[in-house]
Structure formats: structure tokens, C-alpha cells
């Protein structure tokens, strides 16, 4: 992990094999040897002009030939192709899994050698039927009631994508600063608690009420994330452990609150809060026939904001510098502690936005399932989006489509929703290991030790992963 202090030279991985978060714009570790360290110190001591990022990129490649090669590499084996292939591969494996457990496939397998075509057709139809149902449930349903009904699935996709996008942005932003924010789940819960309380306990005029709900939710998430940042910056506590623990603390806190008079709906036996006031709910974008609400527009705005923050602001530059190399960032005069706290606060706030989308938009009540699994899905969304804001947005839409479509798929073909988890996690695994994907599809233009060696192990790996 980036903040570890052991000599990193030998440990510095190939940028190609690194996960998105670290490999995107900045080459990872500097400090080839002491000499490099000295240069960075010297420049800092002299003018303090050279920033951390150039120093770190320096050691990666000498000017000239390597750069040219990397351009070539980008075209042939670039991230885009790997991403598409990874999604394809995951869908194929998911399809095989569906086919394996299909009843028709099972019976045709009985006379596989007598009529192999039956078996193959059964495999094909089992997998494609499920995926067609998934598509119809996620994007366009030709049997829908009029144009409105036909596009209803798409609206549902966007609705479900909303919390995925905002929480995913929170995770992605933290990734860029070198922090693993596993705590989106807890941040969504805390945001949901505060936002829903403001929503149903206070009765304020239209406009102000919703604004206050929004602010309360974002603050709830931001504080929950910010505490992690403070703990990390002040005591060095590892954020992965702290965020995992904070998820559970938030969940049990929520369960406690739903047991109290303050939050439990009067007269209800189940742990459920009162419905939020109409003045506290997000307005619906396309009228009452769809569930799509203002939260989606806010998700777009959040994406624009994060994009600006990361690429155009000083603060975002600091975040990225700290993510690339905290030591170099410190040397360059960046306050690493402050950056850590701030980035976790903002990340928490973004996840908080997802919590608001849940209680003020989609659900309108607080239950102990307010965060569903959005917080964990957000991690895969951010990874698939390679931690870039618009990539995360696209990944959120894709996974939102999976989620929305899976419901329809289960109804139509009986394929359980869990297949989505399988496909989702396979996509991320494959994306994280580009050499594996390239080896499987025979795309290895460069002689790479890891990749060629990977070829031999390929069968075993995929077997294990499937």
C-alpha cells in the first residue's frame, strides 16, 4: 500500500498491472534508489517548484523510445479494449454458470453424445434468455405499454444507478488520493439517518425543507468519512480496517435508532421510520409514472464537480499527488494530513448524497436496509470506472442496469439476482489484471514476462475464478 514505508524500489509494480486507481495518470512509485530520492530532495530544497508528480514520473521512463512504445501500447492493448473484453469475458462466464444450473441443459447433457446439438442449443438459449430478459428489464422492453412503458426499464436503471454513481464517486475520489474507502456503506447509512430525521421530524416550507435534508445527509456522510480521515492522519490507523468497522458501527447504530421512539414509526412493529414529508422528497423528473427523481441530476452535477475537483483544482492536484506518492507530496510542501482528512470528508459527503437519494428519492423511508449493498457495489463501480469521474458515472449506469434488469430476469427466467454479483465481481477481477485478459484473448503484442507466464496459468486461474 502506498503509505508503507519499506523501500519500494523492488516492490514497485509494473504500472500496467496496477489497479486503476494508481495507474491512471501518474506512474506509481519513484525511489528507484537513493539517487532518485536525493534529486527530489534537492529540487525541493532549492526551489520547491518541482512538484511530486513530475518527480515520480521521472523515474518511470526515460524520454524518447519508451514513450513512443507506450503510445503504441495504449492503442493496441489500451485500457478501453481490456475493459470491453473484461466485461465480455465476465458475461460469458456468467452465462456458462447460468447454463450449468439450467434444467433443460441438465436433461440434454444426459444424451450429450447422441444429440450434441440439443445440448449446445440448450446452453445457448439458457444463457441468452437470461441476458435478453436482463436487457429488457434494464433498457428497453418491447412488450411495454406504449412508449412510456417501453422506456420504463431505462428510467428504473437510472434510478438505481443514482446512489451507485454518487457513492462510487466517493470511493473513486478516495482511491485517487491513495485511500481505500470501503466505508461508503456506513456513510450512506449515517447520511440516511440524518436526512430522514430532518425529512420526517421537521416540517418546513417547500424548498427549504429539501435543501436542509440534502445538507443534513451530506454532512452525515462527510462526518462519518471525515472521522476516518482524522484517525488515519493522526494515528496512522489503516483506513480499510477503520472503514469496515465503521460500516458495522453505523449499521448497529441505525438498528438501535429504529428501535427508539425517535425514529420508529408510531404504531409500527417493524423497524421502519415514518415517511418523509412531501416537501422533503426529491421531485420526480418525468412525472409520477417513473421513480426517477432529482437525485439523478444531482449525481450528474456531482460527477461534474468531482471531475473539476480532480483535474482543475489545486486541492484535487494535492489529492492526486498524495495518492501518487505521499512522501514526495510531503517533500513538495503538501499537507498530507490535511489532504487525507479533506478527501475522506468529501468522499463521505458524496456517499452521503447516495444516502439522501435513497431516503428522499427512491425509498422515502428509513429502514435498516437503507444502504442495501450500494456501499459495497460502489467499490466495484469505482474500480470498473478506473477511478475517473466519468468512468465511474458510466460504470454506475452499467451496474444500475444490471441491478434493474436482474429483477426482471429473475421474474422471467428464474435466474437468481445473485448472478449480477458474480458478473460484477468477475468484471472487476479481470479489469484489475489486464495481462490475464490479454492472454485469454491472445493479445500480447509486447513480450512481457508476467503476461507470457500468465498464459500458462490462464486455464487454472479462470477455472478458479469461475
Amino acid at each position, binding site marked *: *500500500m502506498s*503509505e*508503507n*514505508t*519499506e*523501500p*519500494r524500489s*523492488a*516492490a514497485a*509494480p*509494473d504500472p500496467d*498491472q*496496477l*489497479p486503476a*486507481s*494508481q495507474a491512471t495518470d501518474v506512474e506509481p512509485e519513484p525511489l528507484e534508489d537513493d539517487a532518485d530520492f536525493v534529486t527530489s530532495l534537492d529540487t525541493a530544497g532549492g526551489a520547491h517548484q518541482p512538484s511530486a508528480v513530475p518527480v515520480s514520473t521521472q523515474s518511470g521512463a526515460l524520454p524518447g523510445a519508451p514513450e513512443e512504445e507506450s503510445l503504441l501500447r495504449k492503442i493496441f492493448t489500451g485500457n478501453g479494449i481490456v475493459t470491453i473484453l473484461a466485461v465480455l469475458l465476465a458475461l460469458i462466464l456468467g452465462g456458462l*454458470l447460468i447454463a450449468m*444450473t439450467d434444467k433443460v441443459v441438465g436433461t440434454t447433457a444426459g444424451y450429450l453424445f447422441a444429440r450434441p446439438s440439443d445440448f449446445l442449443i440448450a446452453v445457448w438459449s439458457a444463457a441468452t434468455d437470461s441476458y435478453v430478459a436482463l436487457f429488457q428489464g434494464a433498457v428497453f422492453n418491447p412488450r411495454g405499454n406504449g412508449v412510456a412503458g417501453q422506456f420504463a426499464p431505462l428510467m428504473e436503471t437510472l434510478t438505481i444507478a443514482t446512489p451507485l454513481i454518487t457513492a462510487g464517486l466517493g470511493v473513486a475520489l478516495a482511491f485517487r488520493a491513495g485511500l*481505500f474507502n*470501503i466505508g461508503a456503506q456506513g456513510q450512506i447509512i449515517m447520511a440516511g439517518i440524518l436526512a430522514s430525521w430532518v425529512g420526517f421530524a421537521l416540517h418546513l416550507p417547500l424548498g427549504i425543507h429539501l435543501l436542509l435534508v440534502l445538507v443534513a445527509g451530506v454532512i452525515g456522510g462527510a462526518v462519518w468519512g471525515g472521522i476516518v480521515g482524522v484517525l488515519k492522519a493522526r*494515528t*496512522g*490507523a*489503516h483506513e*480499510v*480496517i*477503520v472503514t*469496515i*468497522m465503521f460500516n*458495522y*458501527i453505523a449499521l*448497529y*447504530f441505525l*438498528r*438501535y435508532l429504529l*428501535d427508539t421512539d425517535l425514529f420508529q414509526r408510531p404504531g409500527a412493529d417493524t423497524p421502519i421510520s415514518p415517511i418523509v414529508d412531501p416537501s422533503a422528497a426529491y421531485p420526480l423528473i418525468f412525472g409520477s409514472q417513473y421513480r426517477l427523481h432529482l437525485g439523478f441530476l444531482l449525481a450528474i452535477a456531482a460527477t461534474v464537480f468531482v471531475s473539476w475537483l480532480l483535474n482543475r483544482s489545486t486541492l484535487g492536484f494535492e489529492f492526486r499527488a498524495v495518492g501518487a506518492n505521499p512522501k514526495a507530496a510531503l517533500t513538495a510542501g503538501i499537507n498530507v494530513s490535511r489532504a487525507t482528512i479533506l478527501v475522506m470528508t468529501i468522499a463521505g459527503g458524496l456517499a452521503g448524497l447516495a444516502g439522501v437519494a435513497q431516503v428522499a428519492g427512491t425509498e422515502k423511508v428509513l429502514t435498516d436496509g437503507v444502504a442495501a449493498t450500494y456501499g*459495497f457495489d460502489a*467499490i*466495484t463501480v469505482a*474500480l470498473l470506472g478506473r477511478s475517473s469521474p466519468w468512468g465511474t458515472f458510466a460504470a454506475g449506469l452499467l451496474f444500475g442496469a444490471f441491478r434493474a434488469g436482474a429483477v426482471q430476469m429473475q421474474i422471467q427466467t428464474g435466474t*437468481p439476482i*445473485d*448472478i449480477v*454479483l*458474480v458478473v*460484477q*465481481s*468477475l468484471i*472487476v*477481477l479481470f479489469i*484489475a*489484471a489486464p*495481462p490475464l485478459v490479454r492472454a485469454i484473448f491472445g493479445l500480447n503484442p509486447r513480450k512481457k514476462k*508476467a503476461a507470457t*507466464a500468465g498464459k500458462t*496459468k490462464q486455464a*487454472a*486461474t479462470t477455472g*478458479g*475464478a469461475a
Partner: protein
Amino acid sequence: MSTTATSPVEGKPQPEKNHRPTVSAKPVTWKLPVTLAVLATIAFIFFGLLGPQANAKFGVSSSGDFFQLPAIEVPAFLSGMVLSLILLVLAGYALVLKARANRRPPRWVPAVFTVVFVVAFLIWVVGGARTPSISLAGLIAGSVTLAVPIVFGSLSGVLCERAGVVNIAIEGQLLGGAFTAALVASLTHNPYLGLLAAAVAGALVSVVLAVFSIKYVVNQIIVGVVLNVLVSGLTGFLFTTVMQSDPEKYNSPAELPIIDIPVLSSIPVIGPILFKQSVVGYLMYVAVIVIWVALFKTKWGLRVRAVGEHPQAADTLGIKVNATRFWNVTLGGAVAGIGGSFFTLVAIDSFTKEISGGRGFIALAAMILGRWNPIGAFFAALLFGFADNLQSIVTIIGTPVPSQFMAMLPYVVTVFAVAGLVGRSRPPAADGIPYIKG
């Protein structure tokens, strides 16, 4: 994973004894004494001054015991006062040591403090309950039962992280083990084959972790997180499609019998927890001891720890760093898989979705609290099992503490531990850093 502040000491190999505070280590801080003082004050106010007036009654014997011991009955208020005063003295001792001699308190201080605090807390909880009576024997036996999968999970974590691979996938390994154990034991009607299959399943999950993190140098935390989702999805999918299609055939595993060692199991309190367990329960004790001896008393263990602390140095000495890591991670997975089988072969008689219910993460916490040491992890897991069990008991006897806060306790304690407020947990130096020879 480095759970401690980054120290400026570069490449300092510490392959010898574990966690002995070295002279050049971080300066002695006020954190521990101050934390102890705060906790002692809280204990004094709540358990002592505001303590319940009733008598807390603890049943010691269970019905099948060798000889019956009378139930212990203590006045809650008085014992709360006495115990919290002991806590104050301990905290004061730590404060004085820091102020006068700038020294850390001896290691027994936090340990004794924890035990006394837990006892005081227990008396306070029981004394304040509607029915201030509780079976101590049952409480402890239940804690051990609940702790079994956590212990196996944390041992898996210890094996992986001592070799320098972060294992967030414990949850997935437990779940995979639980599922496979149920499936195989149902199909073969043989729980021992189920146990074996669980180990294989856990190892398989681990192999994926090892291949991706060692061979493809994917970030270990990412692989771990994703593996948890993958196993959760796979088991959920197969549960719905396969197991629910014919539960009789696929999801009614033969149970592992409870092996009752005559005479010994009749000893009050410790008899049932040591000598009245399933095979998995006995395996737990064996695994803790074997892994501790193997890690700290054998050549193999020295090598593993060298790989986890300073891979370059280990490599220079001719140890195959990545091979060691690969096998350790695989072994860890097998251990966690066995732990997972406990859910379906001992505790509950069938598999359900998400049966491990986050215990893998508690195991991770236990490993950290136990300072990457099998025995430490064992006791930490027991503490968590205790909290888990107490949580269900307090809801029955009716206490002032909401059960949700009891459930929260392990996680809060872990946060305190990693933040260095209750002692310092130092992970292996090369934990989480891939090693590329070159």
C-alpha cells in the same frame, strides 16, 4: 497493511521475537495511560457510583457436571465500586510510570485492565437486569461456540499476513467453506468429507487471491474485497438454483457429532468448552497451537515471517518469497474453509445465504487485536464471541444496555486498537506489498 503511523526507520528487519518494544521504537506516548484513565473513570461513574443495587447471580455449574458448585452471588454495587477502584489504580500506575520514568506500563497492565473491566461490566449488566441471574457456564460455553469460526478466520489472516499478503477475503473463505461443506456432506452423507471439502473450497478461494495478488500483482485489498462479493454471489446463485431445487438432496448435511470425553467434560465451566466439542471445535485448539508453534518455533515459521517482514532479505538468503506467500495464502484459505464448515456442519443444519454474516470481518479485527499472533487472535476472537453471546443474552434477561450496542462493541474496540489507543498493533512490515524479484 500498516495500521500504525509510518515510522522513519527504513528497512529495519525484525525477524526475531515478535513485538518486543525495541529501544529505537516510537517514543512512549500518553495514549495508553490516558485511555486507561478515561475508561477507568467511566467504569467508576457507571459501574461504581451509578451501579445497580441488586445482587448479580452467576450460575457456575451446569446440570451434567461432575460436582455441583453453588452459584456465585455478588452485590452489584459493592463489587462495581471495588473493581472500578482497581481499574483506577491500574490507570494511575500507568500514568505515574509515564510521568515519572517515561516508561510504558508492563504488558500485564492492559491485559489485567481488560479482564477486570469485562468482569465489572458483566456484573453491572447482570445486576441491572430484570432478572439479575445468568449462567456463567452457559455464557462461556456459548462464547466459545460462537468464536470457533472467528478463530479459524483469524488464523487464516495470521497465516496470510505473516507472509505479507493482506487477506480481506476471509469472509469469502468462510462462506465458501460453509457452502461446500453443506453440499458435499449432503451428497455423501458424510460430514467428514464435508469438512475436507470445506478446506478445499477455502483453499480455492485463496488460490484466486494468491494468483491475482502475487502473479498479476493486483492490489491485494481489491482482490480481497472483490472475492468476497464473488463468493457471496456464487454461493447465493447456487443456493437458489441448486440447493433450493431439492433441499433434501443438496442441503441437509449430516451433522458432525459432539464428542464428549467422559469424566473430563464434567468439570464445571471448563469441562464443556474443552472436552465437549465437535471435531471442528477440537481442531480449533489444535490449529491455534500448531500454527503458533510453527510460526514462532520452527525454521519454516522464521522463513515465513522473514518473507512478511523483509522480502528482499529473505530472497537474498535463498528463500523463495512468492512461493512461500502462495502456499501460505492457500493454507490460510484451507484453515478458514474449515472454520466455515462450522456453520453448516455444527451450528446450523443447513446452508442459507450469507450464513457467515460478516464474521470474516470480525476475524480480521480479531487478528489485528491479537497482534498477528495466533494465540492473541484466539483470545481476541473469544472476546468477540463473548460480546456476541452476551448480546443475545442481555436481550433475554432485559438490561439497560441496548443489545445493538453490545453488538457494536467488537468493532469499536477494533477501531480503538488500530488507532493505537489500547496498545499498538504493528503489522508485518511488508504486509500488502507485492514482491517482484529484480
